[in-house]
């Protein structure tokens, strides 16, 4: 018992460059900003009591909004402005931990006003923000870094890696939990694999209205149904794949295979495609944006650093003027 605990303590004490957490901060900040702006047109309707212009009678708010004297229009608008400011602070990397904490508390207070007008995307954002409260995400790629060091990036920064590990774990839990609950005969192999087809026929979530044209692409939707189900129930393998990558030097056959097939990259590629597909076909709030904002956690800070160096090199090459074409006549 003592040895596994020591290994766990050492894992949670591990440090890495700040790039991965910075990418998470920027992505989640943008997703939080988008969520805060999207709700603005309907905020009064869904979060005000019927007596103040909302559409339904709401319970007296507890917590933050209760302390502020209740959900009046001015309180609501003030709190929504706070979420916009906090999201911007996260994007630019100024006091991002405090910004994440304040956004989280305000967001929970607002979304708890009317539990009917929300979705799992609210809880997904809350979970991600809670982890960002503990992440030193402004060590590089931030205005803070610029003010402290005179540069936008700081390759020498070392930050605790565990918030990134927990972000990956949260993503795996989301996928696995929903996958294990998909016990409908339309999802499981052996059934008709019609789940995605029928879900896309639901007018509540359809982005483009009538989707009956998918009847002619039913085999494609069946393949996607199976793919999504396998992706979700297989999500815990991502943890094995990341362990395989981190212990490459001592890898046994399973770890070697996982590294050879580049399981993590395939998982990330499928996940990105799936969320783009959800976003393009369905109106389910900012779920895809928030999920994708968590994906930077899949890659180690060193990989982000290499990508950043490659992009910088590419930009330098583009900015350097190419030598003028030779105009002199060839000798001879």
């Amino acid at each position, binding site marked *: 018992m003592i040895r596994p605990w020591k290994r766990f303590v050492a894992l949670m*004490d591990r440090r890495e460059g700040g790039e991965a957490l910075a990418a998470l901060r920027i992505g989640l900040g943008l997703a939080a900003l988008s969520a805060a702006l*999207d709700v603005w047109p309907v905020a009064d309707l869904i979060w005000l009591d019927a007596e103040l212009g909302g*559409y339904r009678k709401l319970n007296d708010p507890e917590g933050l909004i209760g302390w502020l004297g209740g959900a009046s229009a001015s309180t609501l608008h003030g709190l929504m402005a706070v979420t916009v400011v906090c999201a911007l602070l996260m994007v630019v990397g100024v006091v991002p931990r405090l910004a994440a904490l304040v956004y989280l508390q305000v967001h929970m207070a607002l979304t708890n006003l009317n539990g*009917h007008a929300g*979705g*799992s995307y609210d809880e997904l954002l809350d979970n991600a923000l809670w982890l960002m409260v503990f992440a030193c995400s402004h060590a590089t790629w931030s205005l803070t870094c610029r003010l402290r060091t005179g540069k936008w990036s700081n390759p020498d920064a070392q930050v605790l890696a565990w918030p990134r590990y927990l972000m990956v774990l949260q993503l795996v*839990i989301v996928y696995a939990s929903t996958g294990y609950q*998909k016990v409908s005969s339309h999802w499981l192999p052996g059934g008709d694999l019609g789940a995605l087809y029928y879900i896309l026929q*639901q007018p509540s979530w359809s982005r483009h209205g009538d989707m009956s044209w998918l009847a002619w692409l039913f085999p494609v939707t069946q393949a996607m149904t199976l793919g999504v189900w396998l992706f979700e129930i297989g999500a815990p393998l991502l943890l094995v794949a990341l362990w395989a990558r981190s212990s490459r030097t001592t890898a046994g056959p399973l770890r070697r295979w996982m590294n050879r097939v580049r399981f993590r990259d395939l998982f990330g590629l499928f996940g990105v495609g799936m969320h783009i597909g959800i976003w393009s076909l369905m109106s389910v709030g900012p779920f895809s944006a928030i999920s994708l904002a968590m994906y930077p956690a899949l890659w180690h800070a060193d990989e982000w650093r290499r990508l950043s160096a490659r992009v910088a090199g590419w930009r330098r090459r583009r900015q350097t003027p190419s030598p003028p074409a030779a105009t002199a006549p060839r000798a001879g």
Partner: protein
Amino acid sequence: MLQHIWPHARAGLIAFHIFAIGALAIPAPQGGMNRRAWSNPTVQAEFSAWAARLTAAGRPTTTEELEAFLWDFAVAYMGQRKKILEPMYPYYKWSGTHQPWRMFIAPHRNPSKLHIDLKVDGDWQPLYIARDPELDWRADLLDNERFRSALFRYAWRQYKGSYRQFGRWAAHEAAAEFPEATHIRLRWYQYRTIEPARIRAGEEQVGTFESPLTFTLDEYRGEQP
């Protein structure tokens, strides 16, 4: 001293977090412990499919037997689950670490489409049909993704109180905007999504209007909402 203790304390707190979210995310019929919701045709169709599957696998079961067994199991399971999770409720509440990942666990084969009509000169005229680009009264609000979540719920019987409140709001809005109208009507066009082969054969999805609500607009004129 603190330098030696802190890594262990931090790891302990992280372990607590992992246990708390992991335990909460274990599948459970949270929000589904409602016998009225279980009578929904989509849910009943799932029970029937599973009863048939179990029967085919050599374990004869009727839909009613399966439903009764699952209800008893779910009640017992949720009781035990509550005992384990209850001490961690404050943590979930203040840290926002709820784990409600029951997303599209079964396609809703009996979806509903909201229709709103207005009565002018004794005739009903359509005002809004969900996802219809022409009949789009207040679509900027009603089609917003957050409001879609609310409207999705209001087609279910257990939300009829909130559905009525939404209807009153619509009546207030229509009373102010259409002085010539006398009534507003809300109803759900409910249908069973048919198999793709039948769509390809040219069959149309046919349903019925359910849960109509009618409001006399004079009662809402001149009132504050």
